[in-house]
């Protein structure tokens, strides 16, 4: 069943990758503010009409 070793190796690699991603996210302050982002994503984009550019219709 040595294939299990392969799977664990593969899985482990991914897991380690995500651990690093996690480390980056935390220390980049990604999770410092968990209040604003869920609100911010609700806002519609700033369509640039008022910059005298009409969106092409």
């Amino acid at each position, binding site marked *: 069943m040595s294939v299990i070793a392969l799977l664990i190796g593969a899985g482990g*690699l991914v897991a*380690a990758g995500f651990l*690093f991603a996690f480390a980056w996210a935390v220390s980049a302050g990604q999770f410092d503010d968990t209040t604003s982002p869920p609100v911010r994503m609700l806002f519609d984009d700033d369509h640039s009409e008022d910059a005298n550019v009409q969106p092409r219709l």
Partner: protein
Amino acid sequence: MSSPVSSAALPLDERATDIDTFEYDNRIVRNFMIATALWGVVAFLVGLIVATKLVFPGFLAFIPPLSYGRLRPLHTNAAVFAFAGNALFVGVYYSLQRLCKARMFSDRLSAFHFWGWQLIIVSAALTLPFGFTTSKEYAELEWPIDIAITLVWVGFGVNMIGTILRRRERHMYVAIWFYLATFITVALLHVVNSLELPVSLLKSYSMYAGVQDALVQWWYGHNAVAFFLTTPFLGIMYYFIPKAANRPVFSYRLSIVHFWSLIFLYIWAGPHHLLYTALPDWAQSLGTVFSLMLIAPSWGGMVNGLLTLRGAWDRVREDPVLKFLVVGVTAYGMSTFEGPMMSIKSVNALTHFTDYIIGHVHLGALAWNGGLAFAMLYYIVPRIYGTRLFSVKLANLHFWLATTGILFYAIPLYIGGITQSLMWRDFNADGALRYPNFLETVTRIIPMYAMRIGGGTLFLSGACVAIYNLYRTAASGALIAGERVQAPRLRPELAPATAWHRAVEAKPLRFSALVFVAVAIGGAVEYIPTALIRSNVPTIASVKPYTPLEVEGRDLYIREGCVGCHSQMVRPMRAETERYGEYSKAGEFVYDHPFLWGSKRTGPDLHRVGGKYPDSWHYLHMREPASTSPGSIMPAYSWLYDAPLDTSHTEGKIITLRRLGVPYSDGFEQHAVAALRTQAEAIANGLKASGMNTAAPDREIIAVIAYLQRLGTDIKARPAITAAPAPGAR
């Protein structure tokens, strides 16, 4: 506006130059939406056809490419990769751009991804019905297509990551994390599971054999569901529910915890698909435990999604988008409860191999993936066409058609599955099987199959209504191909000083992390060869490689998709040993490239079918199943009787299999075809002797019979009928 402060808006040049004006790429979103809709209909239609075949075996039976065994994989692939796949790309391409406040990294890559993916689907539709399949579920496509998938997928990943790197929003919303997880994990799963050795352009053998192949396949199979049908759609949920309800997600913290816990748990739950099989006990228990643990994060996510709508239920009543989202998330909750439950051994014993599983997966696919997909379409189309939904009435009609359709689909199959399973294990007073004839247990649930057709029809018609509605919506507006928006530039170098480097340079962490990676890589490198060639599965002396004719027969068995209805795994339970014979041992499969354990028993298990019936029985049965088994719903395989067996690759197959560790003696390949002929002659003569005068040795049917008669005979005490001593075993 006359007021002291009233000044005109700052003209563009007045504004800081760091305010970027850019366009979202809505065209690519539109394209993926069209693909989703069309392939969806195809998937549902093919599903309907195969469902019909289960009630009317004669339906479209005469055309080989449209036979049940060949269409079933087409259906699953269309549903998973064409419908759900394109849907998840819609979600990613629409939401990622907006969450990152950036256009997709490269239009070229977007186009490459789109057309590449559609090409893969088309090639699937062109190969599967003609029997070009690896027989590994959700991974049936042959090796050239596997390579194409890898390329296209990497293109998608590069495009996504490039967009993330160019984002104008500092925070990465949780949905983005789910998308990233999808890309990375699926890439790995696909590569690991698709390791195969080609024989010809469209024929290959899995690198792994038997139990190992099974384990890899279900590690993949489970995670394909996890990371292709779940994580991306969770990301979609976390974007579209708040957007549609216009209220922030119930708890953003929870959603973050949800993601990380899911990521760290999901990948290990695979083995639960192999309970009671020849897989080592501890690996099975591992699957069970981790599957059970999965309930926590899954339900955390569901609750988070539903609670986001608290106080907005009045709007759910009106808005079709929210309706579909709610149904989808609820279904997610149900399936993520069913799943872990079915990974408990005793429950699994009942539900595995039955239609219960079919109901389960359709609840997921139709309600969770389908629900979210259609919610997305209803949400996006009006927006990118700068118009309103053509008809809310029709959308609601679709909603009810879909919902009732799902119920009419799932419930009968749940009932049918349990009923049949109970009949399988039903003993009468004097300890004999109450339903020794498998066919009885099938005919009993055919009404359920019939009802399921109704459900499918409802769902399909609903989809058609949706497409009409969406088409009219689009027609009433004009595609805003490039949605022009403005956002301030994000300068990463100005990011508030982070502890990042210090965190990673924190010696212990960095040290152990590097060690881990090193060991993981080392381990992988060292074990891959071991895993692929030298299998340390306890071998059984009497188990011998297949003869060339049996190899060809086995490949026909694969070509016709027999594995879709017949398992080759007798579980160690009295009910099964009574019905089929000695339970299956790991050692019996050491030469099976790929494994053919199957996951569904529409027909009986075949692992011990070898020698159970005379060749003549098989000969008659496969030409006209009803002739030997009245009421059988197995399709007739008339073409096996006309087509001559193609031996042009026999030699190559022997060589390939030897490379994979099957102990054919060197040079055996030269005599392979000859050996094949001799064995075929013997069988044909036997058939002639028993009155089948038309039986010709060079027909495919002979090879199939040879294979079937060999199945599971190696460990039987009495020599099998066609027990030709394994040629030149070392």
